[in-house]
């Protein structure tokens, strides 16, 4: 370590007075989805954003992804302003957004094909896609098409596709929102197991309070009209977390705290 410059680590993601505005259809005015939001996210943390529908949590995530242009304010990743999607970030979508004409392996390969990491041949990409298919527990299903898979399996493909490009930041937009409760819990545990291997910075949007607590180092609670942050809660629960975690006293206390804000 260089003794001359001991600096405090800068936040991995910085959101600075971010405002996101949508035009309502048929010129019925505008909708303020996110209003003047400030947020710092440290490298390697798992942050969940929880709040009711329409509180702007997805808009916030998509702004960080570079898929939504802010009306004012800005998002910085590693200190650099975000203006478009980049190789340092990958998104997992609520509706999976898998290509129905591609097999599991080819869907996982999709992001790799678009980004083409330097020096990798087509064969390398397939090999890498194969590793990530295995990582999310879909070995043996490489040549299935999405319609032949259950919802949970489809989102595993979505997660593998995002991880395969090896981003620094994983952005998950209500990824388990369309799954049944039991599958959702299983997927949460597995996502944590994968995350704990390399501790990428993760931002996870949900409207499930328990899910938000179970996964997070930090919970961002948002409210609507206009979309804003009402509270940031640091979660002090030991990892690795298990089903028992959700029965602990502290877990129940966090749940009460969040309910109060909502």
């Amino acid at each position: 370590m260089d003794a001359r410059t001991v600096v405090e680590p800068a936040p991995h993601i910085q959101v600075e007075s971010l405002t996101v505005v949508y035009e309502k259809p048929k010129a019925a005015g505008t909708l303020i989805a996110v209003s003047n939001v400030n947020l710092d996210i440290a490298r390697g943390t798992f942050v969940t954003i929880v709040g009711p529908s329409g509180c702007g949590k997805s808009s916030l995530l998509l702004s960080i992804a570079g898929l939504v242009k802010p009306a004012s304010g800005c998002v910085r990743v590693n200190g650099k302003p975000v203006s478009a999607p980049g190789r340092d970030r990958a998104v997992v979508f609520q509706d999976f957004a898998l290509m129905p004409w591609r097999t599991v392996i080819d869907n996982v390969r999709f992001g790799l094909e678009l980004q083409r990491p330097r020096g990798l041949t087509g064969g390398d990409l397939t090999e890498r896609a194969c590793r990530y298919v295995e990582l999310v527990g879909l070995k043996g299903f490489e040549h299935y098409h999405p319609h032949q898979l259950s919802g949970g399996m489809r989102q595993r493909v979505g997660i593998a596709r995002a991880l395969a490009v090896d981003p620094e930041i994983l952005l998950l937009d209500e990824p388990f929102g369309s799954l049944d409760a039991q599958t959702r819990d299983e997927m949460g545990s597995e996502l944590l197991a994968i995350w704990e291997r390399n501790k990428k910075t993760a931002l996870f949007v949900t409207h499930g309070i328990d899910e938000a607590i179970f996964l997070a180092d930090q919970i961002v609670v948002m409210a609507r009209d206009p979309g804003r942050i009402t509270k940031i809660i640091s979660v002090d629960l030991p990892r690795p977390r298990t089903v028992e975690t959700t029965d602990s006293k502290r877990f129940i206390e966090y749940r009460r705290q969040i309910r109060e804000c909502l």
Partner: protein
Amino acid sequence: MFNYRTLVSTITVMAFLAVWEFAPRAGIVDATFTSQPTRVVAAGFEIIRTAGFLHDVSVSLSEFALGFTLAIAVGVPLGLVLGRFPVLRYVLDPPIMAIYATPHLALLPIIVVWLGIGMQSKIAVAFVSGVIPILVNAMAGVRGVDGSWIVAARSFSAREWDVFVKVILPASLPSVILGIRLGLSRAVLGVVVAEMYQSQAGVGNEIMRYGSEFRTDYLLFDVLLVSLFGLTATSAVRALEERLWTAGE
């Protein structure tokens, strides 16, 4: 294999052929007007041996092949581009819809005035007939592409060209093939009718000639030939379509 449905269908066809064959023999109808299956088959053997037959078939096939290939070459790319860029669509939508609504065979006289009674006018008719369904379906295919696929591609820093090649094109392929299938039967119709209207050769020309000579057997053989061709080509495209759907759904 030989299930109830094929059995019923086969019996229906056999019954029709039987009535067609025996009604003239029983004196119920006049075979000069209705012909008979056996006569049509016999006429077929004679036509195949006539000097002009191969020439007529090759003229019709060439007209169709050229016009239809042109229709695909123009209709598919234009439809994809129009589907992708709304501004172009606003510009070209009125003329395209006008042509779509026009019975294209009503344009025959003017096409003949422009291009003469040779092959050029038939190629043009095949093109005009085929290109519209191809274009309209390719356009609809692009517009029906799920927006979330495009957003997913963008999230991986896809450029506009990547989005087109990796999302728009494969996603709209089934629609494109459907358009080709619909355009195909219209192009076949266009060629035959154009030949019947004004021409020097071709199967449509033969049909018209046999008609004016009251040679019903000969005429029906040629008609059968055209429908057989249309059926085969359409089935081939449909088979391709079904393979795409089973792979992509």
